């Protein structure tokens, strides 16, 4: 029994060393997002608190903690409180399988990519529960919209993942990264990378697909009734999800923790730094898109998901499979 407790202690220690950097980087990423947004619009963005305004998010978080949490009288209290907790938990739990280098990973499981996909498809519950439990029209409309949007774009993300898996022959995230040693999948599967990126914008409710919280129509969507720390949890969960999507994109297409090229000055940089650089690169694209693209209309969003992305990724899947089969490049599985 003592042995198990020891193992448990080690795991808790590892988990804390995973969670704290993620929470800190979420805070930094919020700052980066606002900063990029400001620079695109020729403003300065947050630059007062701390050096370059780096502590702005911490100040915001402190403000949220001390604000009063208001629960509407007609709300379903249990579900109302549960919703932000679920969003935050799911966003953090998924990080357990993300490999930062060959052996720097909390759980190197065989079905890593399925786990990521499952967790990201559970993310819709936080939103739909929050919207319904508020017992108010705008949050409910926002939740319904969001659920439809996330379920739709998951389908095409799933097919894109199948595309990558066909080339790899394994569901393990480390195997997916190692299979890209010769060539990152962003080159042969470039159209899939573009579709994955756009779908992950929709999946995380980022502009131009932030219809669940379109302030012109729905006040603030599913978050309308939330205040104080509960709102902050939704907000942090959303950004942790965005980071997760960036990590997923860099593992599937940009070669994860592999260096840019396996030559001398590049391959002495440690693997986690490469991973972080790739996540940051994708996040900068996210932030730039938020600043420069106007919001989609809802029917256009659905049309894009079902009538353009889904058929296109299916056709590309058939193409990939035929190519791999014809040139005898299908991955050999050693059983």
């Amino acid at each position, binding site marked *: 029994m003592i042995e198990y407790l020891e193992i448990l202690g080690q795991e808790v220690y590892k988990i804390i060393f995973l969670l704290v950097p993620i929470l800190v980087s979420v805070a930094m990423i919020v700052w980066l997002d606002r900063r990029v947004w400001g620079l695109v619009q020729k403003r300065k963005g947050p630059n007062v608190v701390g050096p370059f305004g780096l502590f702005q998010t911490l100040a915001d978080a402190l403000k949220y903690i001390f604000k009063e949490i208001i629960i509407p009288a007609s709300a379903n209290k249990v579900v109302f409180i549960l919703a932000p907790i679920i969003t935050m938990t799911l966003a953090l739990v998924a990080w357990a399988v993300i490999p930062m280098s060959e052996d720097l990973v909390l759980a190197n499981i065989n*079905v890593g990519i*399925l786990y990521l996909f499952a967790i990201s*498809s*559970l993310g819709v519950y936080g939103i739909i529960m929050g919207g319904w439990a508020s017992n108010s029209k705008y949050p409910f409309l926002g939740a319904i919209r969001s*659920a439809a949007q996330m379920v739709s774009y998951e389908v095409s993300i799933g097919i894109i993942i199948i595309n990558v898996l066909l080339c790899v022959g394994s569901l393990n995230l480390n195997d997916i990264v190692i299979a890209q040693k010769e060539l990152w999948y962003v080159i042969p599967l470039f159209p899939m990378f573009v579709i994955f990126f756009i779908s992950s914008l929709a999946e995380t409710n980022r502009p131009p697909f932030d219809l669940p919280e379109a302030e012109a129509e729905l006040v603030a969507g599913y978050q309308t009734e939330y205040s104080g720390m509960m709102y902050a949890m939704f907000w942090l969960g959303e950004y942790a999800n965005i980071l997760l999507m960036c990590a997923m994109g860099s593992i599937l297409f940009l070669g994860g923790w592999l260096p840019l090229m396996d030559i001398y000055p590049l391959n002495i940089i440690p693997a986690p730094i490469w991973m972080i650089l790739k996540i940051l690169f994708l996040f900068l694209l996210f932030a730039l898109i938020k600043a420069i693209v106007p919001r989609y209309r809802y029917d256009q969003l659905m049309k894009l998901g079902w009538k353009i992305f889904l058929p296109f990724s299916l056709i590309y899947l058939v193409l990939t499979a035929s190519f791999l089969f014809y040139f005898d490049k299908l991955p050999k599985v050693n059983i």
Partner: protein
Amino acid sequence: MIVHSIFFYFFSVIAIFSSLMVITSRSTINSVFFLILDFISVGCLFIMVGAEFLGMILLIVYVGAVAVLFLFVVMMLNVAEQKQSWFIGKKSTHIPTGLIVSTLILLELLVVVGGWKYKEDLMSSSTLLLSEISNTHQLGLVMYTDYILYFQLAGIVLLLAMIGAILLTFRERVGVKKQSYLNQISRDPSNAVELIEVKSNQGVKVDD
């Protein structure tokens, strides 16, 4: 092994408790939430016996898609406060049907589990017995070799169901303006702008 059985009992107690709550809870929304909890704990049980692929697929398909639709329907129909009359009040018409279905399922389970327990060669496929390859590979090996016909037939049945559902709910609405990207892009100034000389007291009729 102790930890293994602790986890097993933890998940199975949650699974049984939540499946009981699904049928006894008064609010429909809570039923759906307990159904989700049930799916998740059954998925965890799958993962514990080494069937990680099945567990993850259960999470993705049932929790990620099917239960979302359940939740959707329950919320949209606004039946959240409907009282279920079990033994009080009016007689429910669902109970006889439910009893018949559950008896059938119990019989099926008895046949399958009993047969598997007492007849060793019921599992005809030999690939399943190789235990050193991972669960996902095993499933793939069996599904695309021994059972390829059933796999394809299941796919066709699902496709037919999808087409049927679309046909049933499809209706052509008249008088709705639709956006056509092709028409918008292929407009050019020569036929988009028209110069009309308006006669006085007559006006212009603009087609809409």
